């Protein structure tokens, strides 16, 4: 994946990122692997998670 995606506003950006993170948590939990996130200044994503 190497993509630029334009969304309406900060809420949509946060929602989109949150969904990706959520999916990764689910995937890695299922695989019994360790998942690691480097969460920076990303309050929108964590609010939606």
């Amino acid at each position: 994946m190497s993509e630029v995606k334009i969304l309406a506003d900060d809420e949509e950006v946060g929602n989109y990122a949150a969904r990706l993170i959520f999916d990764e948590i689910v995937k890695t939990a299922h695989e019994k692997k360790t998942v690691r996130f480097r969460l920076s200044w990303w309050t929108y994503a964590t609010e939606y998670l």
Partner: protein
Amino acid sequence: MVKENQLDISHVKIVMMDEYLIENSDGTLSNCDPSAHYSCAGFAKNEIWEILNSGVPVTSQIDLHNVFHPDAQNPDLYEEFLKNNRVNIFLMATGGSDGHVAFNPPGTPREARTRIAKLADETRQDNLGTFPNFKNIDEVPRFGVTVGPATMVDYSELVIMEIIGSHKHLAFEHITSAKSYQSDWPSTIVRDCTNYLILADVDAAEG
């Protein structure tokens, strides 16, 4: 979503990429107090760890020991930690006025890794807006410990770069027009990452 789906997040590790440093009277540098209003470690605990764990049963929560940040006393150790663990999703943001990413100022070499860095004046000025409790620029620390561009590229599986707001339009232009890393705008490092997604809102894209 975590709460609604009764998700077990105990396997998640939160890995921060930088922290402010204070200058001691003997000239040495050390991480700022996590209780400081501008602390990245404090932000991780209060704004990420607590929010993610909120409403989640204790046995399914992220342990506080799984929140990591670099230490000025041994930056190399953090680099080694990241090398051995890697990062599934690296959430990245960009400075709006100078393109800094983490605490990497303009001029940062592509090969730089976790180290102590002197913050650019523009970065410190941006931080006045990020942390409203700073009264003036003199209160903003002059140094930080930070991962470097090479760290980001080498140890990340997916990078998500968020660019939000019209004040980030210049950053959007720099990043989307760059073909690879430009040291005068360090957040272009996202272009060197194997697997990345740049998420921008309309205000950032159109200015």
